[in-house]
């Protein structure tokens, strides 16, 4: 892995720009996709942007019986191969952080793919609470 995605909750103001950026980046057929990132309030006006941690020993990949989730060695992202995915929801159930998601609009299981190396959320975060940096 050459890159790491970092979140700095203290900078997050819960503006949900990342959500919009993510959804629009993943649009298809003129329809935005489901956002893979969520600023979630843990206290009044305090937020944590919850997004896939791209775990080393990732439960999503382990739970996939059809070998559809693999790490992109370039970006470090655990990616779902939609051609192999049969939407059995194993990863959705297994991810300990709830970061494998059902995209009802496109009828797919989705998760953060780090936008192939240029995460839109990072670009659009007004407070620089999201960082993607080379190791």
């Amino acid at each position, binding site marked *: 892995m050459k890159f790491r995605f970092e979140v700095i*909750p*203290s900078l997050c103001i819960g503006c949900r720009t990342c959500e919009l950026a993510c959804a629009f980046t993943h649009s298809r057929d003129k329809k935005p996709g489901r956002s893979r990132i*969520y600023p*979630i*309030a*843990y*206290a009044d006006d*305090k*937020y*944590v942007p*919850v997004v896939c941690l791209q775990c080393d020993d990732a*439960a999503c990949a*382990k*739970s996939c*019986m*059809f*070998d*559809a989730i693999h790490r992109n060695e370039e970006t470090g992202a655990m990616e779902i*191969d939609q*051609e*192999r*995915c*049969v*939407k*059995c*929801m*194993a990863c*959705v*159930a*297994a*991810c*300990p*952080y*709830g*970061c*494998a*998601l059902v995209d009802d609009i496109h009828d797919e299981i989705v998760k953060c793919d780090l936008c192939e190396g240029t995460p839109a959320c990072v670009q659009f975060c007004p407070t620089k609470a999201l960082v993607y940096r080379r190791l």
Partner: protein
Amino acid sequence: MLLAVIRRQGIDIPALCHHEAIEPTGNCRLCTVEITRENWGGWKKYVTSCLYPVEEGLIVNTHSEPVMQIRRTILDLQLANCPNAELIQELAAEYGIHETSYEKQPEGDNCIMCYACTRICEVLGCSAISPVNRGHDKVISGPFGEAPPDCIGCLACAQICPTDVIPWSDKDGVRTIWDKKFDLVACKKCGKTIITREFADFLIERRKLPREYFNICDDCKRQELADKMGGIISQAEEAAL
């Protein structure tokens, strides 16, 4: 295989029994293409591209008239076999067929016998369902036409089915598929359900995943993560003060 190369070129050819998660078997025949070689002296062969290996010097025609004739006839036959399958209707219409030329099967259940469901179940390691009987009487079913004992209710078969013919439902915390009922794991916090208890147990055992991963739903797990991180941050902030 040839199909992958064809699709990579952006050429659209139908393939109903094809799925990356399962081995190709060539049931639907729709991905048939015409192949030849310079030294074949004009001789042509019709092969299913999902099964034909890529070879140097192969000349492939994906839309020649005989190939189109094959696809039209197969769709026409499928339209007679499963007149109510939307996917077949759409595809047939694409190939200019709106009404079948053959005798419609009144008992048609929209199954195109692609084996995708049985193959995915085999990949999963359950092989709960299989093709039963042979020839035109062939159906997909559990052993003895009953609820399959090896089924864990994962839904892979119903999801992979190109014509959506495997009925299932999730209702009141219970999933029903193949006439078998499964308890769905309910989130301990909000009650939301995602997969069946048997599927969860299967994953826990086969893939050595901790049981607690399956106790709560994805929504609550995200909230939990936020709360946990928030707690750490708050603590750090307090310590800093």
